[in-house]
């Protein structure tokens, strides 16, 4: 992984606990959501539900699951997999926390700023 491909998106505290925010960066034209659980774990997913592309960043976060606001699909934050019996997967994006700041892995070519 190229170090330039890790983007610092700011301190953990900028994401609400049991909540999420969308990034101003996209990956291959698709929006990205960063989630923070109640226990301060953070995850990043493509911000599109595998069902009807609902914005997962607007869902309710409980434990390590987010519920899509459009039709209540459950999506596992760590894998992006839909909770059974639903089937599908939201793309998962590598992420790490360094000195309290969140860094997401977005290869330069794929990332673009929101127009």
């Amino acid at each position, binding site marked *: 992984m190229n170090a330039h491909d890790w983007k610092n998106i700011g301190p953990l505290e900028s994401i609400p606990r049991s909540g999420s925010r969308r990034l101003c960066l996209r990956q291959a034209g698709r929006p990205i959501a960063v989630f923070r659980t109640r226990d301060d774990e953070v995850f990043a997913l493509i911000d599109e539900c595998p069902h009807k592309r609902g914005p997962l960043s607007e869902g309710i976060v*409980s434990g390590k699951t987010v519920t899509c606001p*459009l039709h209540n699909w459950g999506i596992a934050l760590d894998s992006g997999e839909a909770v059974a019996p639903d089937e599908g997967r939201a793309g998962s994006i590598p992420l790490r926390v360094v000195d309290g700041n969140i860094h997401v892995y977005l290869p330069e070519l794929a990332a673009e700023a929101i127009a």
Partner: protein
Amino acid sequence: MYINDDPARLPPIAQLVVIGNGMAAMRTVEELLKHEGGKRYRITVFGAEPHVNYNRIMLSSVLAGDKQLDEIVLNPREWYEENGIRLITGDEVTAIDRDARTVTSANGICVPYDRLLIATGSKPLAPRIPGLELPGVCAFRDIADVDKMLAAARTHKHAVVIGGGLLGLEAAWGLRQRGMSVALVHLMPTLERQLDAAAGQLLQRDLDRRGIAFFTEGQTREIAGVDHAERVLLEDGREIPADLVVLAIGIRPRIELAVAAGLEINRGIVVGDDMRTSDPLIFAVGECVEHRGQVFGLVAPIWDQAKVCGARLAGDQAAIFASKALSTSLKITGVDVFSAGALMAADESDEEITLRDESSGVYKKIVLRDGRLVGVVLYGHVVDGQWYLKLMRDKEDVSALRERLVFGKAFAEAESGGAKEVDYEAMPDDTQICGCNGVCKGDIVKAIRTLKLTTLSEVRAHTKASASCGQCTGQVEQILAYAAGVDAKAAKKTVCDCTEADHDEVRAAIRAQQLRSMDAVRTALAWKKPEGCHKCRPALNYYLLCEWPGEYQDDASSRFVNERLHANIQKDGTYSVVPRMWGGLTTPAELHAIADVAEKFHIPTVKVTGGQRIDLLGVKKEDLPAVWSDLGQAGLVSGHAYAKGLRTVKTCVGKEWCRFGTQDSTGLGVKLEKMCWGSWTPHKVKFAVSGCPRNCAEASIKDLGVICIDAGYDLLVGGNGGVDVRVTDLLVRVSTEDEVLQYVGAFMQLYREEAHYMERSAPWIARVGIDYVRRRLVEDAGGREQLCQRFLYSQTFARVDPWHERASGAAAEAFQPLPELAGALA
């Protein structure tokens, strides 16, 4: 003639031909197949209609839109196949040759029989008047009739129903539900021969309020029209416009085939206690038969006939049919009627005891003879119907209960030391629960336990209890809860999978243990997931907010996105914005502000809503605070179109402008909206205020509706215009605006404190009963005042415009995406 029905004496494979594919016919076949002796028959069924066997009783529900056609199918084609039954539909049997033992159909199919079952049912009676042949005139008997009525409702306006019996009333109600203006012509001064005069009047009043025009003492002279029905003319000169005329004056056994075959006939096909006709090889059941001078139109005795007939065909020589006391009820949503036995005292030695509560719309009458109950008429409050019926059938001596009997089961038994709640443990096994299908408590409990049933639909599938008219559904559910006990967790409606507690238990714990945070609730009730889930978190957040106004801090992360962002998410991830328009009133300045905002933020769609407001659709999330700021400068506040809270108060212009208006409905609507806006409730709440009974604001399908009348205000509650359309119940009639405001405050608080989260007022009232709501709000004046005060106190914290807060910078980061900061990491 002697017939030996010993199975060994019949040919090993005997031919049974069934004429008729209706409810009685197929029930008999089902009963037959339950017996070992039923297996020897090869069965052929002729049905004149092109359909499989369906539940004719439910045609009313199909007409009213409560049910779909496929939901009333009783036996699908697979059932016939699985049971090896040859089904011939759309072909009527035209002759029976008793000598040759064959039947022949219109299409020339000739089938021999060893046993024949006639179940030809009945046909509608037609009055002898001109115009019956006109298009637009139909009966209300089968699917084809319903199709005609539905087609008429789609394209035409005026319907006239002739006949005010059960069927006529249900037809009128169904057509009304389908949006037609409906007139009902009835020969007698009061409705419904199964009711007495007082209950008939109450029924007429209720249906009149629901928009059905009555022409009582109306003798129809003619249906007039050129190429199509246009008018119904009455003997006394009255004329009623009519695009559709439904004849529902009664039914007559369909006996032509039996007459031609030379069977003994009176009014119907005469059968003995063994359901045999005068030809011992030929049986008959259902509406076509006459048994001991009686003909049948209700389903319960016909099921008994089917049982006896099935057993006899299978070789049981002991089965005997005896008709029992019958009850009737009406399938009109929100109108509860029950009657059984004698409708009035026959002579001076009989006693009538009546209870009449005009304003609550409750009427009860019982008729006693020699210390025994012989008749009952219930209106508005019918839950005890089957209990009265059992007292009648068992010919129980009710002298000891005499003074309390009319108040119903709970009261009568509580006073005499019995249990207040229905005690299913103590209830005898032969207590009938489902009157339509003759299913007793014991049958249901046995099926639940041996087959390990856990859902209502399984119980219906296995026992048929509540599968016909559905009125006993609640009782069947309670029996399921009782009988399945700890085995059936599914029977208990827990808040979600995180807990074993149901909504009421959670609320009781919050109150009793003074729990003030979600964590405290989850700990106290041993939640399985420490953080809960997307179902329980919004519920707990609401319950705590409701219980501790001003103390509990709302948790945004437990709110659905719409309530968190104060706008409605759309399918493309944009939002809609609906400013409040108090009582539907607006001003040029507000309209300018809305227009300016729509242009400035390139809002693609601007739409007028059903709730008399303007919806701005397709707003980007980042733009929301700025949009609200601009709207706020013109004085517009959030319309809470996204909230489980008060949405709109729809009004008509009332007496300010309208020549029919009786009160200031617009002004009252504004007052109600100002009082109630911003409140959080279990689910969304919609109000309406109509200035006269023409009800232009559609108050009778709102959670709370006010209909102004000359003398004051009718308060209606529990209506809904959504998937399950429910017409409001009348709560009370009051004379001043102040009373309206107090009742509305109290109603809101009762709903807030006692309904389950995500339960609209309509299912809530359907669950607890309008009587309960009346007791709390109408009969208990002190309680009403306290409820209203609690509501007003809670409102002191709630009447805050969330848009203003956010336009001023609150929760700003929630509307903005995260920026990229330092770029690459070294």
